[in-house]
């Protein structure tokens, strides 16, 4: 369970040089028809980092895969949207490891994880897939 926090969304807007005020000014967001600040398209990735899975995380040495952080690269990323996410929402994230495969005779390993974000009413809001590349050797 993770909260979508307005302060974090404003910090993200600033850190990414966002100039569209609907992403950092509540008045502008409401004037554009939003109940509060909208979470930008990539925000689910950051929410998942804020609320890591209890088990099975790629970097988690105790309850996950314990992959060495120095060896990882982000390979691919995708998002799909079903309902808008706004500041003040509380979401439940569920992550499933869908696939692990290797290329180049094991020199590169690919970990595919899918995350679903569901709101308090049980409605699916957004989904994402993350492909993490582990460099061996």
């Amino acid at each position, binding site marked *: 369970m993770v909260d979508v926090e307005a302060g*974090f969304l404003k910090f993200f807007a600033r850190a990414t040089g966002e100039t569209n005020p609907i992403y950092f000014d509540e008045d502008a967001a409401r004037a554009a028809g939003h109940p509060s600040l909208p979470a930008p398209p*990539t925000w689910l990735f950051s929410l998942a980092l804020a609320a890591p899975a209890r088990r099975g995380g790629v970097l988690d040495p105790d309850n996950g895969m314990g992959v060495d952080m120095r060896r990882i690269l*982000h390979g691919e990323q995708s998002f799909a949207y079903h309902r808008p996410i706004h500041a003040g929402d509380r979401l439940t994230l569920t992550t499933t490891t869908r696939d692990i495969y290797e290329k180049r005779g094991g020199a590169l390993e690919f970990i595919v994880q899918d995350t679903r974000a569901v709101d308090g009413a049980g409605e699916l809001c957004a989904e994402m897939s993350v492909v993490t590349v582990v460099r061996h050797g």
Partner: protein
Amino acid sequence: MDKAPTTFASAQVGDRLAEHVQGPITRTTLALFAGASNDYVPLHIDSDYARAAGMDDVFAHGMLSMAYLAQALTRWAPQDRLRRWSARFTAITPLHATVHCRGEVVEILEESGERLARLKIGAWTGEGLQTLDGEAMVALTDTSGTGT
């Protein structure tokens, strides 16, 4: 730009997004983005750590460029028209790079009763190195009934 970008609602195959340029990416950019995006992997913020891991120096988060690419898309169409999108990270974005986000409508199609534009999208450094290669599906007709 050789022609003014068209509005998304009347999108046609061949239409291009206005090029969206961000950067140059400094160490400050990376420090702020690490904190703001909850991504504390030290490869992006600690030069000593990055060099010990075999890299030349810190390098940009792939998700920073993807956030810039999202800005290119939401400058073309409101975010609630974005149905799904994806990107492959095809090269590391080095420190001091500028990020040039581009996109082009490659297909207009119907799906689940909606008219959608399929866009090829990507990011390049100022030197022309492609760092992200992706695709986005944007709804052209408003079927939500709210007008937003």
